């Protein structure tokens, strides 16, 4: 028996019922996610993307490999060549592996030309692991900036 004795304990049971009853009249806090998108913080870090206008468009990457070197999980393998006329590095294949990425933002911070940024995608679910390996650039041109598409009824950006 508690310090409050039998009647104190009995009263506490009724108080508990009152708490849940009051709670049940409160407005519910559920966000019906696929129909309504969930607001996220402005500094939210989604999957990393290469800033570019469109497929085949311009980008700021100079192939310095800073992001590749700093990435703690080796999620950004980049292949570069010196085929530029000024004999500078130019990225040929640019891959970001979302399966490995741990969203630490180090690559975004280290990039000297601000070529990378975090997207604001919060929901990403795919059927094959291979889909998570995004080949953003192939043969020097941006092939896709899109995230893996899915057949799900959602896919909205947060």
């Amino acid at each position: 028996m508690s310090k409050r004795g039998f009647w104190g304990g009995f009263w506490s049971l009724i108080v508990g019922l009152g708490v849940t009853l009051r709670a049940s009249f409160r407005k519910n806090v559920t966000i019906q996610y696929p129909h309504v998108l969930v607001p996220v913080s402005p500094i939210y870090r989604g999957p990393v993307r290469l800033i570019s206008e469109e497929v085949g468009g311009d980008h700021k990457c100079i192939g310095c490999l800073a992001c590749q070197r700093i990435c703690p999980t080796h999620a950004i393998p980049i292949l570069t060549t010196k085929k530029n006329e000024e004999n500078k590095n130019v990225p040929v294949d640019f891959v970001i592996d979302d399966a490995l990425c741990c969203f630490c933002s180090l690559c975004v911070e280290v990039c000297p030309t601000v070529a990378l940024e975090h997207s604001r995608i919060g929901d990403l679910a795919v059927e094959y692991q291979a889909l998570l390996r995004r080949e953003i650039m192939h043969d020097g041109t941006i092939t896709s900036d899109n995230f893996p598409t899915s057949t799900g009824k959602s896919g909205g950006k947060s």
Partner: protein
Amino acid sequence: MDEQLPILNPDGQYPDSVNSETVPPIVRFLPLQKALDLARANSLWPLTFGIACCAIEMMAASASRYDTDRFGAGVFRNSPRQADLMIVAGTVNLKMAPIIKRLYDQMPSPKWVIALGSCAICGGPFEQEDNYAVVQGVEKIVPVDIFVPGCPPRPEALIHAILELQERIKAGTTHALEPGAVAPVTEQPVEFVDLIERLKKQAQRKSAQ
């Protein structure tokens, strides 16, 4: 006592579905298959099962703000015998791997697996060749239907995965197993003996130094 114990796991073995016989489900004819798939898609009962930090997001997904119960996926079952969906939420250690395999085996067909977070997909931050402790992706142990990247993923991502899985179940394109079928493991399975071997080698190396 000299007498043999007839009940209570006579040889210390836990009863699991590997050494159990299976009965085909009661309803199994084609016109109902569609309705059955719809029902299965809308009633995915997950196994209460969290390994690491991603489990916190899984809890968040089933709590008030995201509420997976809206899709019928909020009934967390504690017994694998009653669950349909296994959410592998977190780093799978080599020591944990046999247990996950056993839990998967104990679930009744049809059953699905969601790999939640980088660690469960491919090892994530622990991805390394010849890693002595972490299984490089839960796919090496059990067949995975949906991969959710993130470290950890947001609750929306899990809900998205559940919706994705629902679509796949309705379309009939999951790895769901028919009773009696053998789980198709997509990659080479982890050999659990490896751990011991490696530890032995490690010890030998240490003693050599």
